[in-house]
């Protein structure tokens, strides 16, 4: 049996205002409420609301056989409440079906794991509390920001009670001869690992509307046929997992409605379920479904799902990014020591990984993606506003 494991990332950052040196100490807001509200409303209309509606229909129609998972960040939930409460309600309706798993992550979609383990664990537990509060849901599966993973992460997550599975990217240089279709164990054999099957996931997330792609247009028949073929090599009856992880904004935002992405999704589950040996599973079920000795796999270096390199270079490649993030984490301890909750909240809002993504100066193909997602004219601008905001934070700290 091959189980398709859908996981969709739902995230919106708090974007900064064009924050100048002369704004420091003036009490001017750091974040661009207008822009954040506009983006949230736009994405809700184009993606969240129509896709949630579609998925709810599909779940009800297939009576428990179609399953999906979401990871929803704290900054997204907060902004739903501020700018699009109906979106939050529609997610609640989905979770209420029982076919939707919610994943755990850092509340602020941060890179804290790489810089401050205590802050990381704080944000993980804040997020779990949030899921309890909003959805009465207890998270058992963890995904770190941008699927960033290395062995040390599994050690940290193992120490947090209740997490049994971690999702990450099926990076070729780690997998080598191994297939991402099996459930693995982490290096210490204590946590279940699911690896994204990036070729097929990215066919939907990145290539779906690309007319230069030889396989364009991607039809349901074609895609299910490819999936069907994946099962040919498995002769011992082992359960396999096709992990299709992607940004939720793929639906209607990155791939516009006109591309046919909604129609694709509307017909996909029924086509899959026509095959007896194909189905859907939630990440939390995979450990029990793995009817074989799970091989352990080690990630000595950090990987992620971003860009061609699938490493940390989207956020931490250039000097601006590194100076910005190091400055932020040096402030954290001092802010905590002072016990100023408002200031801590601000620092955490600034810990969201998107801020560092906007500062990426990598050229080639990936630069386009960065540019698409950035509210600023250039990486330099993003850096200047961010550093100015950190200067403001430090002045408040000294007050």
């Amino acid at each position, binding site marked *: 049996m091959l189980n398709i494991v859908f996981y969709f990332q739902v995230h919106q950052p708090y974007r900064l205002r064009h924050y100048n*040196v002369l704004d420091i*100490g003036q009490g001017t807001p750091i974040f661009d409420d207008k822009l954040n509200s506009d983006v949230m409303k736009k994405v809700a209309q184009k993606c969240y609301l129509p896709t949630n509606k579609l998925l709810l229909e599909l779940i009800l129609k297939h009576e428990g056989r179609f399953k999906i998972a979401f990871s929803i960040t704290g900054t997204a939930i907060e902004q739903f409440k501020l700018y699009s409460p109906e979106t939050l309600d529609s997610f609640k309706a989905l979770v209420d079906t029982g076919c939707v798993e919610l994943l755990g992550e850092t509340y602020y979609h941060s890179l804290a794991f790489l810089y401050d383990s205590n802050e990381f664990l704080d944000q993980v537990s804040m997020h779990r509390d949030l899921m309890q509060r909003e959805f009465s849901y207890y998270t058992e599966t963890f995904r770190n920001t941008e699927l960033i993973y290395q062995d040390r992460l599994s050690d940290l997550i193992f120490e947090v009670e209740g997490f049994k599975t971690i999702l990450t990217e099926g990076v070729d240089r780690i997998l080598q001869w191994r297939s991402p279709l099996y459930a693995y164990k982490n290096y210490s054999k204590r946590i279940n690992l699911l690896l994204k099957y990036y070729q097929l996931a990215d066919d939907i997330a990145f290539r779906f509307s690309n007319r230069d792609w030889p396989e364009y247009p991607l039809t349901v028949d074609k895609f299910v046929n490819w999936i069907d073929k994946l099962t040919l090599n498995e002769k011992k009856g082992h359960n396999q997992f096709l992990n299709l992880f992607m940004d939720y904004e793929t639906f209607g935002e990155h791939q516009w409605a006109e591309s046919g992405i909604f129609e694709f999704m509307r017909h996909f589950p029924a086509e899959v379920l026509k095959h007896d040996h194909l189905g859907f599973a939630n990440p939390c079920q995979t450990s029990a479904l793995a009817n074989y000795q799970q091989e352990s796999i080690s990630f000595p270096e950090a990987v992620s799902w971003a860009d061609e390199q699938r490493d940390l270079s989207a956020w931490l490649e250039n*000097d*601006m990014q590194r*100076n910005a993030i190091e400055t932020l984490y040096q402030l954290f301890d001092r802010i905590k020591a002072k016990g100023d909750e408002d200031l801590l909240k601000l620092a955490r809002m600034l810990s969201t990984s998107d801020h560092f993504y906007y500062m990426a100066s990598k050229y080639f193909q990936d630069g386009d993606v960065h540019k698409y997602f950035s509210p600023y004219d250039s990486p330099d601008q993003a*850096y*200047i506003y961010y550093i100015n905001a*950190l*200067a403001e934070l430090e*002045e408040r700290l000294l007050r």
Partner: protein
Amino acid sequence: MKILMFTWEFPPLISGGLGMACYGMVKALLSFGIQIDLVLPTREMVYFPLRQVRDADSLPAVFFDQKKQSIFESKVFANMRERLEYIGISERPESYFQVADLKRFTISTRKEYWLSQVRTTEEQELWQDLTNNLIGEEDLIKKVQEFTLRAERIAKLLDYDLIHAHDWLCYPAGMITRKISKKPLLVHIHATEFDRAGGPGDERVHKIEHAGMTYADLVIAVSKYTAQMIMSRYRIDTAKIRIVHNAFSISENAVMSQERIFKGPVILFLGRITLQKGPDYFLEMAQKVLAVHPDARFIMAGTGDMSRKLLRRSASLKLRNRFLFTGFLNRKQVERILRAADIYVLPSVSEPFGISPLEAMAYGITAIISKQSGVAEVVNHAFKIDFWDVDLWVETINHLIENPDKRRKMGLEGMREVNRIQWKQAAEEIRQLYSATLAAHRRQQTN
């Protein structure tokens, strides 16, 4: 006395010291009853007849074209800004950018005309130099060409006793006007290409600068430093050179009381971020000072072709949130940043004058200025250091941070000193030069 004055900058059309200097100078000259017809690189063909002191702020304009003038007169503008926009003045001229890597193109169509009626071979060479060098495809050169052609019309249209042209962008205009009107030409050197480029720079600009100074009846340099440059690099006849230092008059409505942004000491760089201004030395100082005084804040205010490089380098030096960039600041914002600063530094590699430190000192800020500057000749209550002696800059900044009382005392003395360096006095020197030039010119004509 009536002056026809060409300049590339005048408030609100301003990017640096040239605009500030012209404004202060013109205002003071007007107060002596001197009349000035001002010509700027505006989009529309206009000149500004300035008759009273307040005209320097209100900028009354006259179109060359009668029809356009009557349309202009019938228009009602909500404010000054709207009126200036109609004429085509922006707040950010692209004046002193480096004119590098230029393609030469042969000959402007006006070359024959410009070369006609030249008598001596020297004169011929001069015009050859001008016409052969005022060529290029880039916007700035094209603007200078157009400005020069415009001057040809102005020369015949207006009535004036003397021509006063500021910096190389306006020299061709000054030259053509002198040629047509046979009125004396005074050229004013605020900066040479050597200063701007921080090295040899563009040869075409040198040639135009040389032609302008040679053709002029009198050359005014803004400092001894610049006069020496003109003599040694351009070989201009010393008898023709006069030195008039710039000055600084604070605007009446400026608010100057300190208003801190940062708790820690603030060290300010204010100017174009170009090689000439030594921004890389500023960064080096910051790195060394911050190692000792991490609570200090270094602010780089302005923009320029080195901004990006400096930004990247400041990040690579891991100066955290202690080295900040403001980007372009308008006048109001400049005043606010000055009110927040404790120490002003001008590490210019070559600064013909440097008005900005005078402004900083007027705010009571302790100034440290490059020895390679004209302003160093006129102030005593400021530290003067060779631009390259980074360790001494660092030592001085550290000393001032560690001794705030001394810093404030020095700032106060500097403020008193700068308040005495008024444009009235500098303008008086210029007025005398006008008179002497006119007298000499009349003698020549009667002979």
